[in-house]
């Protein structure tokens, strides 16, 4: 029968596996960790014995000389120090400083083993060396200005455990002497107080990423202009953001506009300010919006500028003061033309036909004050009732029109004579109120009247109302001569 077992669990597979385990275990037991050695240990003798050996290779296959089993306390660094006791004994040894300053910095980060008997035991790759762990990153110091890779000695000289900041200024002075002179004068020589090596304040520093971006003219300002005297990151960050902190002495308005320059000005320059006059007590509308600032604010005086029209427009007054000083009563800021005088506010109100007459009809010669208000000043008495009613036109007429007029004075002859109600004046006074005629209404002709009156012996009959004061025929009696 054909077997269905997997090859690995067949007797051959199990036996082979056990043999392999035994073989590997045996070699490991006999030769230590030689089977797991990823490469030869360094065999370069240092000229003196450290920890009983002249080189790591002399430890043989004893992995535990450097590697710590996970059930034991400590780490590889501790195993290093077991042999390299001089590291802790030296007060300023670079390695001691490194061990003290960084918990994450392991010996093998720089001293990598198993790279061959003759390979260098030190592989100090500045790109991988955690220099930031000691408080200063080498991000901006990968290559020098000439393009060469930096070495430890370039900055530290021969003492890796210490650092002289004068080395910074010496090197950077060679790169840009003028800048460094000014920079040292402004901020001193405590480079590390502000510079952390990651170019926070170096060539890739971008001030625009901060809360106070440098725009316009600010981009050309010297650092010390705002950060004068700052010698630490904290002091640099304390630079004020308010305009007045730097520009108080530049204030051309002498404080009249307050201290927030940004309300009108931009960082692009003082010129081209955009003052929002609508926020002021005197908004600029109409023609005022196009007026030059100096027209009103002469001498750079902005506060206390009078807001009454006449303060600026006295010379423009075409009325020579006759309308007072409140131009806005008739005019708008859009221009002098198109003024709207509200005559209802005057003593003589324009009603009726007066409302449509041209100003010059009454105010001839530009005279507005002292214009007589009596009707006769403008309206000559008509011939129709000249000398009859006086000059008080309003006694009979209103301003809507001359006609109709209402005569409401004593009149001996009844107004409602006849059968058509109150008659028009001209019915009886066709030419003038100084005379009258009865012939316009009555059918009798002058010839018939004359004949009838002469038949009655009345010769003086031309003045009808003398005998007929109310227009009644009976009022004349039965005749009897002229009735005088």
């Amino acid at each position, binding site marked *: 029968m054909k077997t*269905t*077992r*997997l*090859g*690995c669990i*067949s007797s*051959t*597979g199990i036996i*082979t*596996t056990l*043999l*392999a*385990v035994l073989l*590997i275990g045996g070699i490991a037991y006999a030769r230590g*960790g*030689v*089977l*797991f*050695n*990823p*490469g*030869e240990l360094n065999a370069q003798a240092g000229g003196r014995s450290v920890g009983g050996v002249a080189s790591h290779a002399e430890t043989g296959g004893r*992995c535990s000389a450097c*590697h*710590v*089993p*996970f059930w034991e306390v*400590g*780490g*590889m660094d501790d195993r290093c120090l077991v042999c390299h006791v001089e590291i802790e004994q030296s007060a300023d040894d670079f390695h001691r400083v490194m061990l003290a300053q960084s918990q994450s910095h392991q010996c*093998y980060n720089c001293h990598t083993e198993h790279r061959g008997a003759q390979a260098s035991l030190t592989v100090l790759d500045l790109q991988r060396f955690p220099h930031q762990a000691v408080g200063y990153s080498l991000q901006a110091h990968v290559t020098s200005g000439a393009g060469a890779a930096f070495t430890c000695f370039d900055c530290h000289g021969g003492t890796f455990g210490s650092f002289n900041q004068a080395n910074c200024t010496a090197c950077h002075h060679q790169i840009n002497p003028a800048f460094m002179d000014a920079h040292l004068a402004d901020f001193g020589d405590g480079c590390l107080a502000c510079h952390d090596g990651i170019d926070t304040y170096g060539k890739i520093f971008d001030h625009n990423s901060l809360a106070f971006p440098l725009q316009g003219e600010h981009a050309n300002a010297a650092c010390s202009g705002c950060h004068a005297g700052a010698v630490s990151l904290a002091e640099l960050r304390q630079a004020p953001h308010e305009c007045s902190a730097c520009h108080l002495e530049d204030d051309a308005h002498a404080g009249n506009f307050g201290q927030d320059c940004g309300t009108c000005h931009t960082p692009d320059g003082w010129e081209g300010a955009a003052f929002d006059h609508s926020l002021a007590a005197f908004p600029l509308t109409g023609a005022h919006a196009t007026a030059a600032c100096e027209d009103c604010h002469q001498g750079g005086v902005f506060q206390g500028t009078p807001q009454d029209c006449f303060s600026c427009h006295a010379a423009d007054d075409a009325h020579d003061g006759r309308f007072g000083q409140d131009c806005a009563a008739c005019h708008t800021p859009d221009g002098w033309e198109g003024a709207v005088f509200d005559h209802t506010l005057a003593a003589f109100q324009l009603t009726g036909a007066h409302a449509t007459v041209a100003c010059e009809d009454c105010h001839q010669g530009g005279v507005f004050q002292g214009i007589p208000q009596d009707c006769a000043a403008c309206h000559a008495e008509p011939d129709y009732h000249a000398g009859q009613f006086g000059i008080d036109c309003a006694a009979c007429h209103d301003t809507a029109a001359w006609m109709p007029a209402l005569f409401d004075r004593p009149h001996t002859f009844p107004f409602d004579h006849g059968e058509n109600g109150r008659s028009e004046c001209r019915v009886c006074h066709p030419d003038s109120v100084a005379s009258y005629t009865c012939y316009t209404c009555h059918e009798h002709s002058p010839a018939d009247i004359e004949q009838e009156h002469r038949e009655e012996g009345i010769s003086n009959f031309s003045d009808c109302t003398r005998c007929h004061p109310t227009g009644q025929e009976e009022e004349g009696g039965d005749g009897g001569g002229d009735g005088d």
Partner: protein
Amino acid sequence: MITRSNRELWLAFIAIASISLLYIFTVAMLGGVPPAREFFGHSIGILGFVLMLMTESLYSLRKRSRRAQWGRMSAWLDFHIFTGLVGPFMVLLHSSWKFNGLAGIVMLLTAVIVLSGFIGRYIYTAVPRTADGVELEAGLLESQIAQVDADLQRLLADGPARTRTILERAAAPAQASGGTFAAIFGRALSDLRFRSEWGRARRELDTNTLNRIDQLEGLVRRKRSLYRQVSSLAAARRLLALWHAVHIPIGMVLFTAAFIHALAAIYYATLLR
């Protein structure tokens, strides 16, 4: 050219080329060979080892499951070959070209097992099977030869006698020389010889026969192949059994050593303090 029979090899080649490009890019980025102990080295090593485990386990499991629902045996064999090539290549890159100690032994065993796999595949294909991996017996092969003969006779029924003679000569079993070993491993040589003989035979054929030459060539090839399988069937089976007896122990040693290497790496490197 990609065909059904070599598709897994092309896919493996594409995967290996892609991984090689990634490796070259990583070398350029790091400025050197990526160490086995760092992220890239560990990643590629673990992935490669997982592929190798799949190579050794999945196909074997499928072979022992006769249930078609798990997929065709031929597809599992393709997958087995693909992972068997790509996995070891990744492990090779993981080595960072250092072959010290147990890691070096594991790498050597990996190379041996891959080479053994190539040989095993060659032997495996010498044993005729169905698509589901069921081996064909000799009697069935004989009946298949008879069927091919009948097809040939039908196609040549109205042809000249000379044509039949030419094709029967071409389809005749290859002369065995070198014993069963040559019968199994000399297939490529036999194919080359047939190609040469077939070229000469074609020149002697008449126009009517040439119109059906592709169909005829297929039948002639099939007949030769069946003859060869019949003649080498027993030997191929013996050789396959022998190959298993060698391949499995090598594989077991390889994986035992690889597991110990991984544990040691975790102990010495991952838990490095």
